[in-house]
């Protein structure tokens, strides 16, 4: 503890010192550098460069939507960042935490999620999520992305880009669930489950919040998917964990992580990728995106520290897995709030999120008695719920201007409404899907296969 404080103090002193030195350096430079006057001769033949970006953003203020290349460029990048969060971010994060005999199968869950959901999304998912329809579900007008050309716009970006940006969210939501079912689910059953779940659970809930459905209309605040992605997947994971049953030997045999270096690599990719997740959800290359990056960073940092401190106090040592988990907890908690809170709000949310999610994967997990192997509910479910509720408290006029909720109690109720609706729908539908699968093809592997390890039994492969 003393060493940690000493290190922290030393690094702050060094950082503070270097910042001061840098400032001094620039202050010293100015009076000494000779003032040079540069004149450019503009000849009549030199064309005056036309700045198209600022013109189009002026035009965008008018009713007709116009493509903004800056916005489009940023969302193109964000799409790639969010896909990276799943492959290989989440794949590595989870894989490092399982036993070696199941490492490939755990990575396969994330990898195949990218494959399966890509197809279901363009086939019918996007249409159900974002198509015009009713308060609960979109219609089928955009099945196979019908009617969306290269020119079609969604706001200031091409709609086709919006399609794939949202696709990466659907992919990671499904991949998160794999954390709860690790080390004992049949691969075929998992593939079938995610194909159905992405259409029947993810798309409707997306529609409710972002696609013009009832929750969004009620005023629920969910900037980047705290409800749609995290509560949704966390609850589905918990239900799946109950239905699959506990891993053989839990409590008696060692289920210790086989390689936490993978987990740290994965957590790092998740952290950086989250800039696309939250920053991209601003759907523009602007200050809102920039601020979203800052609050995301601050929440992740704060939660990492609060988790580490909590763990040190409660367990005696601050673990590396704890640091990585704390960062993810902070990122989850800030997700619904990333476009609505100030940096101070993010700091508070991160500190709270780190502690509450620590409780979520220790005491709460013991109470729930499900074998949520990699804590999809403890981190994503609990974190999403905390984030959704705290968003009501920390939503700030400074950031939101006139759009800020005026009545705290009403907003709090709307946030809770979103939480409850998502929990209920996700839990019930996940249960039904898994029940049907279990009755037809079976969802849990045979005990010999579980003993042998899923890499061998499901995939015929081994990592030595």
């Amino acid at each position, binding site marked *: 503890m003393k060493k940690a404080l000493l290190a922290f103090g030393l690094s702050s002193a060094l950082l503070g010192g270097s910042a001061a030195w840098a400032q001094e350096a620039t202050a010293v430079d100015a009076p000494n550098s000779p003032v040079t006057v540069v004149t450019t001769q503009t000849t009549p033949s030199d064309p005056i460069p036309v700045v198209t970006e600022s013109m189009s953003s002026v035009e965008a203020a008018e009713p007709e939507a116009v493509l903004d290349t800056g916005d489009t460029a940023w969302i193109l990048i964000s799409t790639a960042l969010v896909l990276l969060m799943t492959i290989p971010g989440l794949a590595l994060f989870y894989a490092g*935490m399982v036993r070696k005999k199941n490492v490939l199968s755990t990575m396969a869950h994330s990898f195949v999620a990218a494959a399966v959901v890509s197809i279901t999304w363009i086939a019918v998912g996007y249409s159900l999520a974002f198509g015009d329809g009713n308060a609960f579900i979109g219609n089928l007008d955009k099945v196979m992305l019908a009617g969306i050309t290269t020119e079609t716009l969604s706001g200031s970006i091409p709609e086709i880009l919006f399609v794939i940006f949202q696709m990466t969210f659907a992919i990671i939501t499904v991949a998160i669930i794999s954390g709860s079912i690790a080390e004992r689910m049949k691969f075929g059953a998992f593939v079938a489950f995610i194909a159905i779940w992405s259409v029947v659970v993810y798309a409707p809930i997306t529609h409710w919040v972002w696609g013009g459905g009832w929750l969004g209309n009620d005023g629920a605040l969910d900037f980047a998917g705290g409800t749609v992605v995290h509560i949704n997947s966390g609850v589905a994971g918990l239900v799946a964990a109950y239905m699959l049953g506990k891993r053989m030997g839990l409590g008696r045999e060692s289920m210790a992580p086989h390689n936490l270096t993978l987990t740290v690599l994965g957590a790092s990719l998740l952290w950086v990728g989250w800039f696309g997740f939250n920053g991209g959800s601003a759907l523009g290359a602007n200050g809102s995106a920039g601020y979203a990056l800052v609050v995301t960073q601050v929440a992740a940092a704060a939660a990492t520290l609060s988790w580490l401190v909590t763990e040190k106090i409660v367990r005696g040592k601050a673990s590396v897995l704890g640091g990585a988990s704390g960062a993810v907890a902070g990122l989850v908690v800030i997700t619904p709030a990333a476009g609505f809170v100030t940096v101070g709000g993010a700091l508070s949310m991160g500190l709270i999120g780190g502690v509450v999610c620590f409780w979520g994967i220790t005491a709460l997990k013991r109470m729930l008695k499900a074998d949520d192997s990699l804590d999809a509910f*403890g981190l994503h479910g609990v974190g999403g719920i905390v984030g959704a509720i705290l968003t009501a408290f920390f939503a700030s006029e400074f950031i939101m201007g006139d759009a800020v909720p005026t009545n705290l109690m009403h907003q709090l109720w709307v946030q809770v409404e979103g939480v409850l609706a998502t929990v209920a729908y996700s839990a019930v539908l996940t249960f039904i899907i898994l029940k049907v699968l279990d009755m037809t093809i079976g969802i849990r592997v045979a005990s010999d296969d579980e003993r042998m390890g899923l890499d061998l039994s499901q995939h015929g492969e081994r990592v030595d």
Partner: protein
Amino acid sequence: MKLVTAIVKPFKLDDVREALSEIGVQGITVTEVKGFGRQKGHTELYRGAEYVVDFLPKVKIEIAISDEMVEPVIESITRVASTGKIGDGKIFVTNLEQVIRIRTGETGADAV
């Protein structure tokens, strides 16, 4: 002929190897093993779960030697592998019925 099996702490392997070569032992076989005697293990924490790890990593050294060499070998190993703390290990001496050198077919004392 005897088979001397020594279980020692892993970081002592190099010292033992040098000491043995100083007294003329020409070949050894080394295996990484786990075990415990009176030395306590440690506790590992991973999120919500605590694991007590009883097994400690050790190194097993097997030496096939002639009867006259047994005492010098035991003395060398005991001297260099000892730290004075619990967990230093043990030495087992067993009879070797037969030894064959694969390349030449030599047997018995010629093969050791």
